[in-house]
C-alpha cells in the first residue's frame, strides 16, 4: 500500500471525472432519491420550540442579569472598591464612591458605599469576572431568566442602582426563609 492510498478516516476518495451513463444523465434516480429524502423529513421530529409556552433548558453555568446583593440585615454589601470595574474586560462598570453618614448605618454595611453604580448592558459580555473579583460578595450574576429589554434609546441600556440593587422585599423574604 503506497502512502497515497492510506486513509486514516476511511473517507478518503479518489476524485474521478468519469462520464455519466445514460441512466445517470436522465437524473430520474437522483431526483427520486432526493424526493425520498425530503419525504422522510415530513415525519421527523420538529426542532421548533414554541417560545413563550416552552423555553429551552438553560445551561447550568448560565449567567443572567447582575444583582447587587444586600446582607442579612438588608444593607447594601457593596463598598465601592472598584475591583469589579477593574476586572471587567469590557469596561462596562463605572461607579462613584461616597462616605456613609452615621444616620445611614442601616443602609450600607461598610463605611464607604457606591453612590452611583452603573453597568452598560450594551458592553457587558456576562463573563462573570466582576463576580469573581468582588471581595464583599456584593455583585452576582443571577440565574434569573430576565433578559435585557430591547430599546431604541442607548441611554436606557445603562443600568443604574435602581435596576441592579436587590429589591428590599426580596432581601426580607430571603432572610425570613433562612430562619
Amino acid at each position: 500500500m503506497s502512502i497515497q492510498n492510506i486513509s486514516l478516516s476511511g473517507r478518503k476518495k479518489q476524485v474521478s471525472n468519469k462520464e455519466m451513463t445514460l441512466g445517470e444523465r436522465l437524473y430520474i434516480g437522483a431526483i427520486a432519491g432526493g424526493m425520498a429524502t425530503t419525504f422522510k423529513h415530513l415525519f421527523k421530529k420538529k426542532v421548533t420550540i414554541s417560545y413563550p409556552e416552552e423555553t429551552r433548558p438553560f445551561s447550568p453555568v448560565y449567567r443572567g442579569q447582575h444583582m447587587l446583593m444586600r446582607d442579612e440585615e438588608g444593607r447594601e454589601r457593596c463598598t465601592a472598591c472598584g475591583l469589579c470595574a477593574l476586572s471587567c474586560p469590557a469596561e462596562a462598570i463605572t461607579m462613584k464612591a461616597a462616605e456613609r453618614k452615621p444616620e445611614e448605618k442601616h443602609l450600607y454595611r461598610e463605611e464607604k458605599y457606591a453612590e452611583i453604580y452603573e453597568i452598560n448592558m450594551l458592553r457587558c459580555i456576562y463573563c462573570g469576572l466582576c463576580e469573581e473579583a468582588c471581595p464583599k460578595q456584593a455583585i452576582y450574576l443571577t440565574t434569573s431568566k430576565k433578559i435585557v429589554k430591547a430599546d431604541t434609546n442607548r441611554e436606557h441600556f445603562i443600568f443604574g442602582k435602581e435596576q441592579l440593587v436587590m429589591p428590599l422585599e426580596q432581601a426580607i423574604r430571603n432572610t425570613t426563609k433562612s430562619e
Partner: protein
Amino acid sequence: MEEAIIIEKSVIIVAVFAITMLFAMYCTLAERKIAAWIQDRRGPNRAGPGGVLQPLADGLKLFAKEEFMPNTPNTFLFVFGPFISMTMALMTSAVIPWGDTLEIAGRKVILQAADINVAMLYVFAVLSVSVYGIMIGGWASNNKYSLISAMRVASQMISYEIAMGLSIVAILMMYSSMSLREIAAGQHEMHWNIFYQPLGFFIFLICSFAETNRTPFDLAECEQELIGGYHTEYSSMRMGFFLFAEYAAMFISSTLLAVLYLGAYNYPGMTWAAENWGENTANLIGIAVLFAKICFFIFLYMWVRWTIPRFRYDQLMNLGWKTLIPLAIINIVITAVVLLLTR
C-alpha cells in the same frame, strides 16, 4: 325549465369559483406548512387552531400594506397586469368536469360550468393568454430587471406550452374528442390514461411545473441571484394577486393532471358502488376522489419545490426544446402506430 337551467348553471359557476379561490387560498398555507415540515419546522400555527386562519391574516396584512406605485409609463397597465394573470388562471376552471352527474330534486345536474366540445382548445387558449399578465406587469413596472424577468417567463411559458400541447395530442387521438367530459368518462374504472400514456404524463407534469412557474422552473422570481422577478415593483395586494394567480394556476393544473391522466372522478369499483349504493352516492364519492387526486398533485408541487434546486436558464430551454418536444413527438408517433394496429 329554462329558469331552472339558469339557476343550476349559476350555482355551479359560483361553486366552482368559490372552490378554486378557496383552494388557492389554502395552498399558500399548505405551502408554508409543507415547507416547514420538510425542514423539520412546524410552520404557521398561531392564527387559529393549527394556523387555519393564516391565509386570512396574510390577506389582511397585504391589504393593509402600503401600495407603492413606481413612476410607470402606463398606470392602467400596471394596475391591470395582475388581474389578467388572475382571471386567466380562474377561467380554466369553467370546463373542468368536477364529477359525473348528480340527481338533485329529480333533475340530472352535470357537474361542469361549461360542457363545451373544444374544452382542451379552450384550456390552451386561456393558458397562453396568462403570459400577457406577466408581460404587461413586467413592462409597466418601468424597471429593466422586471422587464427582463417578464421576457424570461414569457419565453419559458411559450416553449413549454408547445411540449404540453404535443403531449395532449396523443390523448386527443385516443379519444378522438376535445371534450374534457368525454375524456373523463372514457377513463372508467381503472382505465386511467397514466397507464396508457406514461411518457405523455411525465411530459405534461414537467410542463405544468414550468407553466405555473413553480420550482424547479421558477426563474421568474429568483430573489437570491437575480434581484427578483416581474413583480419586483409590485407591493401589497397587487403583489398578492400575482401570487394568488400562481396558486390558482397550480390548482387548475393539478386538476387538469387529475382529469387527463389520473382518471378524473373515476375510481376502481365505481360501477359496483353505483349498483349497490345508487348512482348518486357513487358519483359523490367520485367528486371526493377527484379532490383527493387534486390534493395529491398539489402536494407533489410543493414536495418538488422544497426538494429540487432551480434550473439555470439555458438548461431550462435545453430541456424544453431539445428533450421534451422530441419526446412528445415520439409519443405521438408511438400512439399513432399502436392505434393503427389495434383498431
